[in-house]
């Protein structure tokens, strides 16, 4: 069969201010598992959304079995045999497994009445066919994440899909569950079907994929045969660009004084034995892939999540931080990655936002002193060069960069000495990024200490004095700025901390090698 199951060429997609994909290409053969890899923000999810009909491309050609198609919507994508399993599930927690899978297509008696028995039988037949072990009558909300993942897969397969796209399907699975999932994928692939598999776990790609397509910054880079490549080569392709010499941190040298010491920090859900020190005047970068647990470390430190074990010392004394308000009063401020929801009151003005954490300072017996708030706001508007017509401007009308500066100002007013920035430049354009970087360096000079969580490796490399790398809830290594580069960071970030064997089953590997 020379015609590819799916071929994409010349696909471009722009959003206001961002070119998400340009001249993207990709092909998927029959009976193939194609891995799609790229850094965070490389354009993988945009590509997926084009394929599932959520977005419409600006230009480009999609072909299925050599026939050009224009995907008009999610339902149309389903009809074409394309099923996507998104990272966040689309399930009804209160319904049973079978009810979820056949919602909208349930077997009926006389048009109105449901036949629960027929529904469960249908589901059971499906599970037998695709070899999934699920109870049709179990309530989805009672299932583990892994089982819910299986429900999503079963639902996708129940639509007679030919092209199955999985977006980080194993992010929440343990090794045994990953192995089950891989068996499922192998069962699914045949001469009529193919799978596009997005993952960050390099060892998995080795185990499951036939070829690997690498994309970077919205562009197609290369496709390699999995059997003939090494993990290092793939990482090189993913990272690509070199870091130029002038993108190193500012000359400010941190002192030896330890302001924050975290020892053996663990949480029930994810974090395991996290230990590190933050020095005065230092930027400690936290690198890792999505879901590695970087945000969770920050949340655990400021008391937003419960710690199951471990200690936190501030300036040498043991502290117990019950919630973010306590953290703030001790001088630790957390600037959330989700600025719009967790960092700002979008409908309130600049002045209110800046004063929000320190209202006590601006009030007497509960009555707010508007004048004092205004003058403090003006001071910080000047200091941080916030571009706003006045301190009475509503926050949502400002650009992302200026919104971020408002959040920073809020914590500066609160007089926090330790600032934890989570993705400080997410959604901010290039020029404004430079300003934020300059601001971070100024803060160091003023004696602040900074933890910076970022998914952009160049940003981490440029600003951090030291870099802590996380993978799957653990710290996998520390790198000093001089020894760090994108390759060794990425290697640590993709380290599988559970040393499990994920060898492909003999039969399927034989099948693959014949191709």
């Amino acid at each position: 069969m020379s015609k590819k199951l799916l071929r994409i060429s010349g696909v471009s997609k722009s959003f206001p201010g961002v070119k998400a994909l340009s001249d993207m290409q990709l092909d998927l053969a029959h009976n193939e598992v194609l891995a799609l890899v790229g850094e965070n923000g490389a354009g993988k999810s945009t590509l997926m959304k084009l394929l599932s009909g959520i977005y419409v491309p600006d230009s480009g050609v999609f072909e299925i079995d050599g026939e050009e198609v224009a995907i008009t919507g999610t339902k149309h994508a389903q009809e074409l045999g394309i099923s996507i399993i998104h990272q966040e599930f689309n399930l009804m927690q209160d319904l049973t497994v079978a009810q979820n899978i056949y919602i909208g297509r349930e077997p009926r008696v006389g048009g109105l009445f449901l036949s629960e028995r027929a529904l469960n039988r249908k589901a059971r037949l499906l599970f037998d066919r695709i070899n999934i072990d699920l109870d049709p009558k179990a309530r989805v909300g009672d299932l583990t994440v892994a089982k819910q993942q299986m429900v999503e897969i079963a639902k996708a397969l129940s639509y007679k899909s030919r092209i199955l796209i999985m977006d980080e399907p194993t992010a929440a699975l343990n090794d045994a569950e990953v192995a089950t999932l891989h068996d499922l994928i192998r069962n699914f692939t045949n001469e009529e079907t193919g799978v596009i598999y997005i993952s960050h776990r390099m060892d998995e790609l080795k185990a499951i994929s036939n070829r690997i397509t690498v994309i970077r910054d919205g562009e197609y880079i290369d496709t390699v045969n999995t059997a003939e490549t090494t993990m290092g080569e793939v990482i090189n392709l993913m990272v690509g660009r070199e870091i130029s010499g002038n993108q190193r941190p500012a000359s400010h040298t941190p002192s030896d004084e330890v302001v924050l010491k975290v020892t053996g920090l663990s949480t029930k859900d994810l974090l395991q034995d996290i230990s590190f020190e933050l020095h005065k005047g230092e930027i400690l970068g936290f690198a890792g892939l999505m879901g590695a647990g970087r945000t969770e470390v920050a949340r655990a430190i400021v008391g937003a999540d419960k710690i199951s074990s471990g200690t936190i010392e501030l300036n040498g004394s043991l502290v117990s931080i019950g919630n973010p308000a306590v953290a703030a009063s001790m001088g630790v401020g957390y600037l959330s990655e989700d600025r719009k929801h967790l960092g700002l009151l979008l409908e309130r003005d600049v002045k209110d936002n800046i004063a929000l954490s320190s209202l006590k300072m601006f009030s007497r017996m509960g009555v707010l002193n508007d004048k004092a708030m205004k003058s403090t706001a003006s001071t910080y508007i000047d200091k941080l060069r916030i571009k706003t017509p006045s301190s009475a401007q509503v926050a949502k009308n400002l650009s992302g960069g200026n919104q971020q500066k408002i959040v920073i100002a809020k914590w500066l007013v609160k007089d926090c000495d330790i600032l934890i920035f989570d993705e400080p430049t997410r959604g901010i354009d290039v020029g404004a990024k430079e300003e934020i970087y300059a601001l971070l360096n100024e803060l160091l000079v003023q004696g602040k200490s900074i933890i910076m969580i970022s998914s952009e490796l160049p940003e981490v490399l440029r600003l951090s004095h030291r870099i802590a790398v996380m993978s799957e809830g653990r710290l996998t290594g520390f790198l000093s700025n001089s020894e760090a580069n994108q390759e060794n960071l990425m290697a640590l970030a993709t380290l599988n901390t559970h040393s499990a064997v994920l060898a492909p089953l003999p039969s399927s590997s034989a099948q693959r090698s014949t191709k």
Partner: protein
Amino acid sequence: MTLTKDAAQTAKIASNKQSELNTRLRASFQQLLAFASLLALVLFFSVASSNFYQAANLSNILLSTVVTGLLALGTTFVIITGGIDLSIGTGMTLASVMTAVFMTQMGMPMIVGVICGVLFGALMGGINGFLVAVMKIPSFIATLAMMMVAAGLALVISGTKPVYTNEVAGFQSIFALGKSIPGLVIPNAVFILFAAAIVAGLLLSKTVLGRYTYSIGSNVQATALSGVNVTKWTVLIYTVAGSFTGLAGVIATARLNSAQPAGGAGLELQAIAAVVIGGTSLAGGKGSIIGTVIGALIMSVLTNGLSIMSIPQEWQQVAVGVVILLAVYLDMMRRKKASN
């Protein structure tokens, strides 16, 4: 290799069966608990006052449950979708006035008047559904507005005077106070409530409409993405809910043999309280008709029992409020434990 795999498979199936059993047990335990609370209340009042456990009084309790119970049945549907219906109290009043008008001023035969009364309720529900699903007005606001509209219309149409249905032969007896089963003191209205509860229970658990009610309340986006016409079904669900309001209006008219145009306000909150006590979540996705029936019975047993114990009405209200808080808090705690 195959041997260990088989063993693992067997173990998996066994653990599956186990979890299935646990889920079942938990679900029945939940309803058992509500029922046990009801029994405990009955027991308590029986001991506390000899006047409580008398056939006439028990029949009274049941009769006083009918109108709020019917309203609660309908609004259970709406609440499971994640919505709320504040218009059922005065909507019931308007349906009551309309039923009386149909039978007297418009001269419809009794049975036609009854059917038209129920259909009128369905129409009001349909309008609510249209406002919520098509015009995208939040259900709280839409039904709050409808509550006022219905209150006003009931007064306008009746000319602010009660509309009497004394002339309609057999109406009161057949649809409210008559006792069809010899030897039993239970009036017909109670049987109508239980019949309606059975219909509602079947609708919710055995029909497509019921399935989508849960589905919409559980995750409306996922439901829509699965190809379900959420707008259409939401309108239908509200329409069904409204027909129960209409039936409540009919029964209320029959019981007093007149439509009282000024009443009804406040009943919606009693109905919602019954639904919530019955374990239906205001967040949507969860709930049952049997729970609602038990919730409504708990409310009326409590009110009746406290009256019999000569607790002043002011304090009865306090007690009901505390019971609602307790019921909802215990339910939340149990769910939290179950999910851990």
